């Protein structure tokens, strides 16, 4: 039965807290289940009493007798207060234990493994032990306790990956931390869950959890600098990128583009999605995006440029070879 149950959950409710995939998420899910069982019990009691009393004590036709004028009952009132109180004390105790386990105090000198910064409307991930900086697709090691530092670059955002556990707000001027202990490799959908402006809906991310070897490979691959493009169209795009305004917001390591306002694009084409989960990375989407950003994602921080067709094609070709 439990196996069947978890299979059902997996098939129907993946990408949600019902499919916990980290130590932290498991703890919270257990509490979630026990509370909801108690809550359904309480609700069933109230529904039963409401219907039962309504039906049993409805006024019948031609019955004009006056019901007994009771004003209270001390014993019943004591019960009414003490049973919910006991239940709440139990859940407070459980809640306290889970809180302690999921969000232990972080030592002042602890170094985070990854610093994730929320921007309107994308995520920046900075791997403290290597040169890697990436955006929106964040790779994490599975089977290992890691510490994330969460920051905000502009307004308040909230880091939430339902399958991996608790959300944590990213607040300007106040770094926050969470521990994660991911069970197994896999892909987990995450999203911003504090309203942060026009495109809050498209501030999503993919967490890719990998085993030790794959993670190390990914880090190695992503810490390399970008190389000069081979074909002439992409080369042209590279020049436009470096000399035009692109470079003042975006960074491509190994080139003169050093901007930190927009997402790091060093290995842009190694990512599956762009624009905070809005669309897949492919030539058509890139072309559409850079030709009219405010039409594709109105309210995002990328301004409209007036590029001609050749420029757009060159830029697209350049971006597509940033593996």
């Amino acid at each position, binding site marked *: 039965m439990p196996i069947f149950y978890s299979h059902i959950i997996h098939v129907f409710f993946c990408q949600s807290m019902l499919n916990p995939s980290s130590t932290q998420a498991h703890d*919270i899910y257990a509490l979630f289940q026990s509370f909801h069982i108690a809550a359904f019990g309480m609700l069933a009691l109230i529904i039963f009493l409401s219907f039962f009393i309504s039906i049993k004590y409805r006024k019948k036709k031609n019955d004009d007798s006056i019901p007994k004028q009771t004003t209270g009952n001390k014993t019943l009132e004591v019960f009414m207060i003490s049973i919910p109180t006991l239940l709440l004390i139990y859940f407070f105790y459980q809640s306290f234990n*889970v809180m302690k386990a999921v969000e232990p105090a972080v030592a002042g000198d602890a170094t985070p493994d990854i610093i994730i910064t929320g921007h309107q409307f994308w995520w920046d991930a900075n791997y403290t032990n290597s040169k890697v900086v990436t955006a929106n697709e964040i790779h994490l090691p599975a089977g290992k306790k890691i510490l994330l530092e969460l920051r905000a670059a502009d307004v308040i955002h909230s880091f939430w990956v339902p399958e991996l556990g608790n959300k944590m707000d990213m607040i300007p001027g106040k770094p926050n931390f969470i521990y994660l202990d991911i069970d197994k490799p896999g892909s987990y959908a995450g999203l911003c869950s504090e309203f942060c402006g026009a495109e809050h809906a498209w501030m999503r991310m993919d967490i890719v959890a990998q085993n030790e070897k794959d993670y190390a490979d990914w880090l190695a691959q992503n810490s390399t600098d970008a190389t000069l493009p081979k074909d002439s169209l992409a080369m042209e795009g590279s020049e436009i990128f470096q000399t035009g305004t692109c470079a003042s917001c975006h960074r491509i390591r190994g080139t003169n583009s050093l901007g930190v306002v927009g997402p790091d694009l060093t290995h842009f084409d190694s990512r599956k999605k762009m624009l905070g989960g809005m669309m897949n990375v492919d030539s058509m989407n890139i072309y559409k995006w850079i030709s009219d950003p405010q039409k594709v994602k109105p309210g995002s921080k990328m301004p409209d440029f007036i590029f001609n067709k050749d420029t757009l094609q060159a830029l697209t070709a350049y971006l597509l070879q940033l593996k």
Partner: protein
Amino acid sequence: MSEKNIIPEPQQSLPNTNVSNDQGLLQWISSVDHKQIGIMYLLMALLFFIVGGAFALLMRVQLAVPNNHFLSPETYNQLFTMHGTTMIFFVLMPAIFGFSVYFTPLMIGANEMAFPRLNAFSLWMTFFGGLILYFSFAAGGAPDAGWFNYAPLNEHNYSSSKGIDYYCLGLLLSGIGSLTTAINLIVTVLHYRIKGMRLNKLPLFVWMVFVNAFLIVAALPALNAALSMLILDRQFDAHFFTAAGGSALLWQHLFWLFGHPEVYIVVLPAFGIYSEVFPVFSGKPIFGYNIVAASSVAIALLAFGVWMHHMFAVGSGLVVNSFFSASSMLIGIPTGIKIFNWLATMYGGKIRFTVSMLFAIAFLIEFTIGGLTGIAFSIVPIDWQLTDTYYVVAHLHYVFIGGSVFGMMCGLFYWFPKMTGRMLNEKLGKWFFWLFVIGFNATFFVQHILGILGMARRVYTYPDYKWYGLLNFISTVGAMLMGVAGLLLVYIIFKGLRKGKKAPADPWDGFTLEWTTSSPPGLKNFDTITEVTGRRPLWDLKHPDMRDKM
């Protein structure tokens, strides 16, 4: 027989009681009569309810299917901000004030509020506050940072249209109106009660309004301070809520220090209405008057110690989170007890299923759902998963609609005959009840599941994940049903006003003093009232041999 009490003539408010009370619109606008002001509050609530409801329907159309392009993100964000702000400040607040200022004097045997002109001032401040908020549409864009308007998104850098400035001014004005009404109600209850009506014999509605008035006086200043600081930030580059010198979290603390009591402000008077309606339609006194009365005081006091449960995800640490977790659970107890009190009031009675009573019974179940999901949020780890998702959207609507709006409907169908002298059509009322209840549950119950499935609130669209499309579509269909129900309600009200059956003074076999005067009451509420000896003065009068013992 006890002696008759002469009700003192309110000299100031009614300089000449012989004046014709049919001078059309001008009379309404210039009125200081608490009954006319109460009705105007209710009409104002109805007007804004239609507008705020239309916004909600537009939002539900946008969310009906994944990746929809019906509304632009900017428009959607303005709509959800205006929907929340309108419903809280310009629907629920005026609605509770409408019932409060109309019935408080009537139920304590007074002819007027303590300060009739202040009463009119409060109404118009609230109304102008609403107009100023809505003027933002004409001034370049409505506020777009949500009804709780978090910093620094509410700052000039991130919301450069004038909307949030109008939000500040509108809410400050209506806040002044709320404060003055609260003071007016406190003085009225303390000073103008009929002889014999000691505080422990107050009808529970009046008691809740009284407790609520203190809650308003204590809670509104935090909001007013925050709004003033925000205006300084936006207009004069102060830095109260920016990371440069100020703190983004300061806004959250100030806002929720007001905002959580606000939830109780709009629900306590509704509790008062239920506490009148359950006894009358069960033919029994309230079960455990003292507990119901005392638990309201407990709610009012605890309300100021729970605000940080809106902020469990800001990273405050174990001690702070535990404190606010415990206080939030604690406030569930006095709230939960009342449900059992009302059930016990029905138990052993002779229940009459009027529309008013149906709303009261439905409230028991709907509010229990909202209360239980509220407890879920006081359990911090569950809150960490579910806060800012559709689970919260469902929770807050079960509280605001299942608690407050059902209370307003309950009060409307109960007191409409008193206010207008006409009965509402009970048969159409039952249609309205079922449409509204089914629509409401279809809209919001599925949103619990959406939240658990990971759908964040305040998104103008969503990816096509499993179940998202279907559940959102059900929710949209439910919202349309509620929209139809809303139109039906407007029809029922206007039909009742024009063609409703003439209402007798006491159509429901009521217990309290408002049913002793004519329907509608004259300009002067009462001439004489028998001395009050119990909690149900009219019952005592009808059943001299079965008087309530005190």
